[in-house]
């Protein structure tokens, strides 16, 4: 069974600080996704990582993928309050299915002034 684990599950940061969220998964996967969810809202796609060593950056967020270690990271640089949200990583099980996503439990990020 494919498992996806995120840590930390809760993260309280001060504005201007850097931090990294980790996403481990238990079996081979083709793709890894990062989504953002604001309270009571839907999931917004942030990044799609398609291969080993992939790195993508958007603003203060940078995601990377190491398929050998089965690890993805989401790095936050100089956090601002607007980044407060829950961040989910999800792994694609394409090799066994039509692309259904298995999600981690999410990391609830709170950025304080």
């Amino acid at each position: 069974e494919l498992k996806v684990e995120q840590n930390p599950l809760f993260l309280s940061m001060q504005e201007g600080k850097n931090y990294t969220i980790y996403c481990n998964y238990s079996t081979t996967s083709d793709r890894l996704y990062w989504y953002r969810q604001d309270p009571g809202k839907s999931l917004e796609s942030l990044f799609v990582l398609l291969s080993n060593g992939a790195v993508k950056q958007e603003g203060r967020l940078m995601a990377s993928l190491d398929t050998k270690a089965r690890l993805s990271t989401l790095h936050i640089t100089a956090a601002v309050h607007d980044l407060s949200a829950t961040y989910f990583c999800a792994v694609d099980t394409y090799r066994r299915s039509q692309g259904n996503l298995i999600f981690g439990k999410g990391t609830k990020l709170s950025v304080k002034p």
Partner: protein
Amino acid sequence: EPEVTQTPSHQVTQMGQEVILRCVPISNHLYFYWYRQILGQKVEFLVSFYNNEISEKSEIFDDQFSVERPDGSNFTLKIRSTKLEDSAMYFCASSGDSLETQYFGPGTRLLVL
């Protein structure tokens, strides 16, 4: 920008009643999905749908659940006899290809009393 839409946004029903949740995927997309998120928990895959048939379903998607694409635009999830534990946010998602990002709708919050 094209988006996935869902109706209703909120649905309250009595235990044992049937509910139909509706989704309009992005128009040129071919892969459709339903996920659910129980309050405060992770997003869980329910079912994927392609070429007018179910591609894969999870253990959650038992005989009480069904999906249908009744016309060229709508994609529905029916729960035949709702249980209290079906209370959750239900998200529809679509993608142009099973290898691509899945775009999520705003969700339907279902409350079973």
